[in-house]
């Protein structure tokens, strides 16, 4: 299973600690961990939001008169934000499913 420790390095991930630490070191050696990928994609969403904000500002202040570039920047920000929300919903669903487990 993929390491789900998205809260930070100090929180102990769910599952056996030995296996988890092995997985983490493996993840650091090869591909980025899920948490890192998530952080990266969130910062990408943030970048697109800021880009859209800048485009709207420069259009409103008359620095650029490029209407379609502004609209496309807005659309990009919209779609990437929706994608982020879907990922968040999925993570929350999985979390709640686990919390509902009968012990």
């Amino acid at each position, binding site marked *: 299973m993929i390491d789900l420790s998205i809260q930070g390095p100090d929180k102990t991930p769910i599952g056996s600690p030995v296996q988890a630490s092995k997985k983490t070191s493996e993840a650091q050696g090869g591909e980025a961990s899920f948490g890192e990928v998530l952080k990266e994609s969130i910062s990408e969403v943030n970048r697109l939001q800021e880009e859209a904000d800048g485009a709207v500002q420069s259009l409103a202040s008359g620095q650029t008169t490029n209407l*379609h*570039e502004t609209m*496309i920047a807005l*659309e*990009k920000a919209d*779609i990437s934000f*929706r*994608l982020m929300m879907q990922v968040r*919903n*999925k993570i929350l669903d999985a979390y709640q499913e686990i919390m509902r487990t009968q012990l």
Partner: protein
Amino acid sequence: MDLFAGMDISASGLSAQRLRMNLIASNLANVNSTRTEQGGPYRRRMPVFGAAGTTDPRNGFGNAMDRELRRVQVSGILEDSRPGRTVYEPSHPDANPAGYVTYPNVNLIEEMADLITASRSYEANATVISTFKSMALKALEIGR
């Protein structure tokens, strides 16, 4: 982000068609301009478009398929070399000694046809963008 490569290509198409619209506006506005800074009547201007690679510095090498993508770029703006139309108007201040005035080589009908083509091309690129967006939203609906 690779996700929006198609959108960026269509955006270049929109920019190119907008420039073309601007040139058509310039041609139509100067249909009767008999003087310019260079001397002589206004000459019809037209854009030359060329295909250019989509290089994203953040993307590094990128995908081999993505490297084949081409956006449109304006290679240059050329002046039409066809002769202007000459009209006999002795009272015109720019008339030559024989009484003939050379008007710009702008053909109204040609410009109107170009105008329709440019606006349809703009529309086509805008449709690509909105289709791209609805495809992305459809893909996001899978998770719902």
